[in-house]
């Protein structure tokens, strides 16, 4: 299955170019031009990795990150920032972002981070699945209780 990536940035031409580059590399890409739009899409679709600009009008990158972590805690977030907002990106990592990159960034660096973020999410989900299986094996009645 393709890695599902959501790009969130208010710079439309940046979003267009980056999304085309990622699609060429076989990622399943969706785009949003604001934090509000991104959250709406996250309620309806599943994403593995979100690439999130820190400085956006309306809902900021940090506010958007907080909401993403509330509704989809396993989705990994990579913050994109100009140098003026590096502190915000670091704050984002304290709030659970996977990593951050400075604009303009090299495609290879971004792709490496997307893949690492995807792997972390996949491992996390696998551990949750294993824990559930162990729980069922230890107490099969919980399956009936769940139903």
């Amino acid at each position, binding site marked *: 299955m393709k890695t599902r990536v959501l790009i969130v940035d208010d710079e439309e031409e940046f979003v267009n170019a980056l999304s085309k580059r990622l699609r060429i590399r076989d990622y399943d890409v969706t785009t949003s031009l604001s934090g509000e739009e991104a959250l709406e899409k996250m309620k309806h679709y599943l994403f593995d990795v979100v690439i999130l600009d820190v400085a956006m009008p309306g809902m900021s990158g940090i506010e958007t990150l907080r909401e993403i972590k509330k509704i989809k805690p396993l989705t990994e977030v990579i913050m994109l920032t100009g140098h003026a907002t590096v502190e915000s990106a670091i704050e984002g990592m304290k709030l659970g972002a996977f990593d951050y990159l400075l*604009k303009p960034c090299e495609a290879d660096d971004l792709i490496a981070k997307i893949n690492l973020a995807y792997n972390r999410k996949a491992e996390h989900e696998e551990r949750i699945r294993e824990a559930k299986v162990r729980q069922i094996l230890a107490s099969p009645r919980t399956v009936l209780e769940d139903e």
Partner: protein
Amino acid sequence: MSRQWETIGELGLQFFGKISASISHEIKNTLAIMNENAGLLEDYCQLADKSKPVDPGRLKEVASSIRNQIRRTDGIVTNLNRFAHSTDQWMMGVDVGDFLRFMCQLTGRLAFIRGVRLKPEPLSASVKIQTNLFFLEHLFWLCLDFAISMAGEGRTIRLTADALQTGVRIILRGLEGLAGSPKTNFPGRHGKTLLRVLEGELEINEAAGELVLILPKEVSQ
């Protein structure tokens, strides 16, 4: 008096830093777009090398985006250069209409990030004053910063000016949040110092949602 100049000097540097940081952030954004487009061209070349034909329309689209961003960056750098030269002379002639357009371009991103747009309106007649340009830019930014907070997200602040016999009246309209807003310390000690130096006055009209800055035709040396 020396305390007054210390305040102006220290906070003036902070203002210069704030504007420079905002401009460099804008330049980073345009560079990022050009960088992605250059990368996209490389990707298309690699596809062509693998005998996958590339639609020339796609290449034109990328070239057009790069040209847009070069034009945008040129505007940003021109504004930065003009801003840097505002400290060249102690007193200079300022065309108020031109000054309002320039300030909208210079601080537009800072307003936009707070969800507010700045719109200079054409003046009915040309208005010129003799003043210290850097101090005026600084004082005007304090006015804009306050106005942006009072306008609220999704609003537009309209900027205009009228000639007075004694100088000029600059008006910031669309400050819907002025009425009923809690008391602020605007313009603050710092703003008051700048007003004193520029021999200006501020009027806040809550009912009309307006902030008015009155400046003399010529600041006494």
